């Protein structure tokens, strides 16, 4: 299990390749890769800067991965999140999950992203033609995370 918060870019192929360290019982690898879009809901975006809470960031990502490991049978997980200034098409975040079976890998990868979006202390500030502005949190992200609470109770 690996959690990284960094300014540098990363190589998605390397992340997949390194997952599970070549163990031969992995059957399914699901990855999520998040990219900077050149448009947001309110218009064009030239760049964005990601701020975070050093220390808490790593701790919260590790807690999310640990919770995923308690819910599904996972063989390895890598989470990488970049901070600092990024431009459209730049990579922001990657979550890679290895499991024996695809159902576990899909669920855990989506769970980690939904929780990261609502519980990990990152904040985006967009640069637009009208100036800089902090991105507003979306209620749809809260709903996405809440789905997993319901499943826990079910």
């Amino acid at each position, binding site marked *: 299990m690996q959690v990284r918060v960094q300014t540098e870019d990363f190589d998605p192929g390397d992340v997949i390749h390194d997952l599970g360290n070549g163990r031969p019982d992995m059957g399914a690898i699901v990855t999520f890769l998040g990219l900077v879009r050149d448009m947001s809901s309110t218009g064009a975006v030239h760049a964005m800067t990601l701020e975070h809470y050093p220390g808490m960031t790593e*701790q919260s990502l590790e807690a999310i991965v640990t919770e995923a490991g308690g819910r599904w049978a996972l063989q390895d997980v890598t989470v990488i*999140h970049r901070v600092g200034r990024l431009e459209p098409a730049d990579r922001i975040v990657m979550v890679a999950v290895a499991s024996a079976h695809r159902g576990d890998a899909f669920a855990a990868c989506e769970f980690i992203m939904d929780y990261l979006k609502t519980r990990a202390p*990152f904040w985006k500030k967009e640069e637009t033609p009208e100036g800089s502005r*902090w991105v507003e*949190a979306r209620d749809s992200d809260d709903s996405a995370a809440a789905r997993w609470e319901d499943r826990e109770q079910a």
Partner: protein
Amino acid sequence: MKVLYFASLREAVGMESEDVEPTAEVHTVGELVEWLATRGEPWSDAFTASNRVQCAVNQVMARPDTPISGADEVAFFPRVTGG
């Protein structure tokens, strides 16, 4: 006690962190917010309910009734938007 501010809240209060010594009646996050706001602007404005300020105590997400002690690191910030 160390108080940290992030993102738009950091800009609103004009500082990244401050060391504070709240009065003895301040036992929870909610009471700390009230005490910080009693000092007037910029804190009174930054902590309006409409801002939906979130809080972490010792780097773990907290709620208004989460207890705090003098040794804690308490952070305030807007709803997160990473990923």
